[in-house]
């Protein structure tokens, strides 16, 4: 990583898993993502995970691009160093845009397009794995999906529904007042890519996810045992 950050300069962003550095890559504004070694992990496991995730992320981004989804261009991948260099998309985060504009016509158009692109990805059996409004950069009205670190290849419709559910959950937690409108716009775009039937199936699966496992409280809210709610 020292090669990419001469003078040992501080990263522009510190995540749990990696540091991001703003760099110029052959003249192109770029982001270098370095997956950090974790001393708490067994060295062999650490190397295996960092290598596999770097490769998987590069592959997923290339596949997404092939499927017609706007993603930053992959410029360089070095599995040995666990470094991935991608194009730096200058734009505004979708989360900030919703924060500023609410469910404006412009926002609804962007979210509909996002739904369309996620639909394209799912048709190609690729799920993003961390689909939140903070992982979408909007440039000239075009939503770019970023951070494919948790993405996966899968044919399972339930995995795809989990993706959509993550998006819905991020709307609920950060933009609660516009959930319904934004979710409908997303699903409209999603149906445009996958057809009405597939979209309806995923919508039903999302509802099922909410009443099973960790979301069981939603199914049981009616049967509360005592009156006190903090």
């Amino acid at each position, binding site marked *: 990583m020292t090669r990419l950050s001469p003078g040992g300069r501080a990263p522009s962003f510190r995540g*749990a*898993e990696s540091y991001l550095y703003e760099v110029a890559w052959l003249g192109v504004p770029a982001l270098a993502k370095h997956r950090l070694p974790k001393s*708490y992990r*067994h060295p062999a*496991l650490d190397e*295996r995970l960092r290598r596999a995730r770097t490769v998987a992320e590069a592959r997923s981004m290339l596949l997404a691009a092939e499927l017609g989804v706007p993603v930053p261009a992959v410029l360089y991948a070095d599995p040995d160093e666990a470094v991935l260099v991608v194009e730096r998309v200058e734009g505004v985060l979708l989360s900030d845009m919703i924060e500023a504009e609410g469910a404006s016509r412009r926002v609804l158009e962007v979210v509909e397009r996002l739904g369309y692109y996620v639909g394209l990805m799912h048709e190609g059996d690729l799920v993003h794995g961390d689909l939140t409004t903070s992982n979408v950069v909007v440039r000239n009205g075009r939503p770019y999906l970023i951070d494919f670190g948790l993405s996966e290849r899968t044919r399972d419709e339930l995995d795809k529904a989990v993706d959509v559910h993550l998006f819905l959950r991020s709307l609920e937690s950060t933009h609660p007042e516009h959930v319904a409108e934004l979710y409908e716009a997303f699903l409209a775009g999603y149906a445009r890519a996958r057809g009405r039937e597939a979209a309806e199936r995923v919508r039903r699966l999302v509802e099922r996810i909410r009443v099973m496992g960790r979301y069981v409280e939603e199914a*049981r809210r009616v049967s509360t*045992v*005592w009156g006190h709610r*903090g």
Partner: protein
Amino acid sequence: MVSAATRSSYASLAGDPRRLYPGLDWDRDVVVLGIESTAHTFGVGVASTRPPYILANARSVYQPERGGIHPREAASHHARVAAEVIEQALAEAGVSMRDVDAVAVALGPGLGPALRVGATVARGLAAYYRKPLVPVNHALGHVEIGRLATSVGDPVVLYVSGGNTLVAAFARGRYRVFGETLDIALGNLLDTFAREVGIAPPYVVGGLHAVDRCAEEGRELLDLPYTVKGQDVSFSGLLTAALRAVRSGARLADVCLTLREIAYSAVVEVTERCLAHTRKREVVLVGGVAASPVLRRMVEEMAGYHEARAGWPPPPLAGDNGAMIAWVGLLNYLSGITVPVAESRVRQRWRLDDTPVPWRAGA
């Protein structure tokens, strides 16, 4: 067998309730008896608003002769030892039922038949002695006794036991579950593997789990599945692959090493994500698996990296115990939370994030 921890075990209770729970009235003189019976352990604790706060922590643990926990056998064990453990807790605390202000009970989450024994006993005590009955969420018990034991104000909590594996942090009025297991719990993974390959029971000897002990002889890390999906972990694939590896002739110690490294790394990774996401500065490790020195070291190392402090309760307060139920019972009682006996149903799947935390409401 009934065993009670001596009071000296709690000398390490570091927290000051007046600082940790500033909204509650610590000038009141309140004593609460708490009953735990969600799984293996029938535990009875006594908590007080006066130092040393935890006055008793008696327990009897059901140990299956072979195989895993059988809910009805656990229940019949609990029913058999209940009276004796209650008497022991009262004796240890030096109080009688007349001195007790309220009876608290863990109503969930847990195994139905086991839960019902604790609930029945608690209802009986409450009705007979005319004491208020206080409902307690078992997971919240782990969290709050962890805070009291380590004097931690606002931690990311890693809760790992035989039946639960989750990472939680306080936000908007509740302990929100940031990530959890999608299938089996971490303790269940370790126990089942150890049992299937014949290195347990006993599962824990000298504070070390059979898998941890066996892993000490491990040299090589094998290629077994590591599954972290978003913020959740999954262990069932790892268990199957580990058992298959043993059957096909891999060195047992290597499999143990791999299993433990992968499983612990996965929960620590999710904890790390939660820490980075919430920007909290403290981590508390609770639940039966918190006794693992290997896991503690990993959590500590990860926390240090984020300049966060890591802590865990002493062993009698880390695994399932009555003291933590008494403690949250006390907090609930001071917050005005009680339940009429007639409405005190057990909730096998009662979620941590569905549990009010009024003493932190303003946090």
